[in-house]
């Protein structure tokens, strides 16, 4: 199946660029800490050469700090790897719970800079759909961007995926005191072609103050237009 061009539009490139920029920033921060740990080791050796003994417990803590930063970097790179592979197949069975978890990781820094906390509670069962994972991540990123902008600093946005009789739904929750209908309209305006290509229906549930993205059971990705 060929990839629908509407799914790799300028919005897709912008999404790709923003995610890569955030990842590179996070990696730089990890390298900065490891660099300082290396520098401190040099400092301690230099002091030892001048007669000041090295405390082994200090070295152990340094080693532990380096390992912690390596784990931190490993987490960042793992998320980057999953993000990169989301573009492998134009149509693949995907667990929405994992996709939302990945989105939360990729958007964590952006959210922190806006003073927003993203929560992605994990349901007990996978929620499977057939879709273009990168395209769906892009769509959800735009939804998240709009909801975070509307929420403002100090707020929490919760994302959850649920099975429905006719497919699946992703809910952006805890949008109280926010005009969710306006957010839905803005998202639709920004993602019109993308939503169509993904067969995604975006709407506002004003009663529960949620932005809702519905995906069909039989396959989220439309056949490529002639």
């Amino acid at each position: 199946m060929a990839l629908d061009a509407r799914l790799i539009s300028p919005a897709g490139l912008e999404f790709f660029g923003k995610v890569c920029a955030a990842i590179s920033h996070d990696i730089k921060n990890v390298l900065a800490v490891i660099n300082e740990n290396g520098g401190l080791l040099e400092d301690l050796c230099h002091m030892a050469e001048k007669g000041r003994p090295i405390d082994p417990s200090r070295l152990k803590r340094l080693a532990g700090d380096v390992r912690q930063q390596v784990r931190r970097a490993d987490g960042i790179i793992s998320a980057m790897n999953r993000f990169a592979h989301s573009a492998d197949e134009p149509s693949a069975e995907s667990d929405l719970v994992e996709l939302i978890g990945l989105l939360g990781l990729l958007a964590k820094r952006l959210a922190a800079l806006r003073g927003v906390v993203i929560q992605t509670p994990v349901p007990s069962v996978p929620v499977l759909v057939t879709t273009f994972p990168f395209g769906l991540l892009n769509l959800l990123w735009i939804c998240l961007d709009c909801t975070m902008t509307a929420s403002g600093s100090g707020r929490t946005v919760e994302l959850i995926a649920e099975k429905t009789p006719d497919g699946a739904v992703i809910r952006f929750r805890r949008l109280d005191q926010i005009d969710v209908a306006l957010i839905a309209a803005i998202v639709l305006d920004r993602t019109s072609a993308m939503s169509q290509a993904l067969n995604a229906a975006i709407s506002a549930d004003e009663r529960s103050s949620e932005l809702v993205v519905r995906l069909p059971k039989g396959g989220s990705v439309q056949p490529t237009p002639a």
Partner: protein
Amino acid sequence: MTERVLIVDDDKAFLSILSERMQHRGMDVITTASPVEALRIVETDSFDAIILDLMMPEMGGIEAFQRIREKRPDLQVIFLTGHPSVSTGIDAMKLGAMDFIPKPVDLNELAEKIKQAKISRAILVEKQAQARLKKVLTDKDRCPPCRSILPRS
């Protein structure tokens, strides 16, 4: 004399270890992961240099810098960033930052810039003191005793 430095960075691991290394070099270091707290600190405390991360969740580095400048125009600020860009660097310098250093940091380079910041601040403070003194001495109406020491006009 010991350089007195305030470091503001939301990455606490980086803050802790950079602070320790700078203290080993004899600097007097205060740290905070909160730019809002940094604004409170500079109201009552003086520093030879402020090392300020460019991107922080609570408040961006540029905004924090502008607010520090409003309270304390004498303080010298050196930006640190994990993603330096020419345009951001230019913006920071235009606003009056002393310098702009990418992460990972070369501590020798940073230490040198802190020494320069200390000199710059000392010159600025001296100029301000001289300007205040000149104002007092030339303001005859506000300083009657000064009239006796001023040349007759």
